């Protein structure tokens, strides 16, 4: 006779636990809704942008990213220091310090010379432009310049740079 009683007690206990579970789930759901209501409403009531506005904001983000990239003094991509356009190696900071306080790094990246040619440019800047003595930095600076910005042999006149040409169809009205 004990068993039915135990069953009854077990049933009650089970019902109670089930109710408790349901209550806890409801409570959690309620809490979750309370926490996310604003987000959900914001999402449902979000402003509708036109394609132009979306494109504009995407452009702005791209520009901001580009500016951020440009302002990042540590960023190096494909061996190029993005901020200055200079080739990256262990002497890069020496170059930035010695050269770019007076002139653009573009003056380095667009020029090509042998070690002695670069040395003559440094002499000229020291003689006429107020560049101070570079001391023991000078050989390291010359190593860097001669390694990364050496001349190429192009003869008396180079070919047109085929890689640089952007081919396009020229629209002409008259077919003669």
């Amino acid at each position: 006779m004990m068993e039915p009683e135990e069953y009854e007690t077990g049933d009650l206990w089970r019902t109670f636990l089930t109710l408790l579970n349901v209550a806890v789930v409801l409570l959690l759901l309620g809490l979750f809704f309370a926490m996310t209501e604003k987000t959900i409403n914001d999402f449902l009531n979000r402003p509708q942008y036109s394609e132009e506005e979306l494109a504009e904001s995407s452009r702005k983000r791209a520009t901001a990213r580009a500016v951020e990239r440009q302002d990042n003094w540590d960023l190096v991509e494909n061996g190029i220091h993005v901020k200055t356009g200079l080739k990256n190696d262990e002497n890069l900071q020496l170059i930035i310090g010695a050269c770019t306080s007076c002139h653009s790094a573009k003056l380095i990246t667009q020029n090509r010379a042998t070690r002695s040619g670069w040395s003559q440019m440094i002499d000229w800047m020291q003689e006429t432009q107020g560049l101070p003595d570079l001391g023991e930095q000078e050989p390291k600076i010359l190593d860097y310049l001669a390694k990364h910005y050496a001349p190429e042999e192009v003869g008396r006149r180079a070919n047109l740079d085929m890689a640089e040409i952007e081919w396009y169809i020229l629209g002409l009205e008259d077919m003669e």
Partner: protein
Amino acid sequence: MLGLENSVISKYPGKSDQMTLLNDRPINMETPAHLLNDDLTANDFFFVRNNGLAPKNIDIKTWTLKITGESAKQTKEYSLDDLKARFEHVSYQLTLECGGNGRKEFNPPAKGNQWSTGAVGCAKWTGVRLKDVLNEVGLKSSAVYLGYYGADTHLSGDSKKDPISRGVPIAKAMEEESLVAWSMNDQDLPLLNGYPLRLVFGGYPASCSGKWLEEIVIRNKVHDGQKMKGSSYRTPCSPVPPGAKVEDKDMCIIEDMPVKSLITYPRTGATITLGQKLPIAGHAWTSAREISKVEYSIDFGMNWKPCDLGPSANRYSWQNFSSKISFPEPGYYEVWARATDVDQNIQPILLPGWNPKGYLNNACHRIAVKIEK
């Protein structure tokens, strides 16, 4: 007020963002060839060659031009209003070309801004004749050279250093077309081209045409300002082999710029169909009285055919040329243009004489063209 109406990017006031920037400190920018197609170069497409930093906070009410020097009979100062009131106003179409235009092609490479073909332009300049001003001040018989000083500042920030102070022989200064100009294409000079006042000497390296002009000195010897010495704007007095080291004493100041031309239409890379005729157009210029002939070749100089050549508005103006080209078969071609002036100077096909700083490259301009079936 600063002539900024065509300004596209505020960082480079008055200049198009289609310019090719070679250097941003100091600012140096050139014009892609196809953007030089107009008869006169628009202010926002005119190249910029700065040696220092352009002046700030320019006040045209207080701006003065001082004429002085050991060979001037007196020292005299003119406000902009004085200049405009006292002397006849004249306009000329004058071509300005940087002495280093084309430097990029020299081998061994020459140091400096690596100009390709676009450090040239031709504008209508308005101002007064320099000789009228000089005659009012009076020159001593000892006068041989004129030097200028501008309001631009040295890159180092050192106010005692001039970024550039060049000039011309007195005979050049006294030419009809030598101007003290305040206007370019009927607008104020762009800031980067010398606002509010500059010199303009056609036919000479553009570095002689001082910008932000504040002072002219009449010298009894060749002017010895910044960039008059060493290898600056000088070439070997006698020809040297490529890569030679040349002593300063063996270098001579560049005066006349050589005969040259530029194909400004179409842009390089044009592709057309066999049977179509390719129209080409461009400009040719010289320090001689005028251009007498422009020819084109599509076979690397084996055959040359004449182009139609327009008149010269005045000495030192560039002249337009044009033609229509037939191609014999499909394939890759280069169109080369070659100008000849009345003194029988002809543009070389290869690079002219090597010099340490890579000046005076007047080799033929080339564009690439593809003909398809």
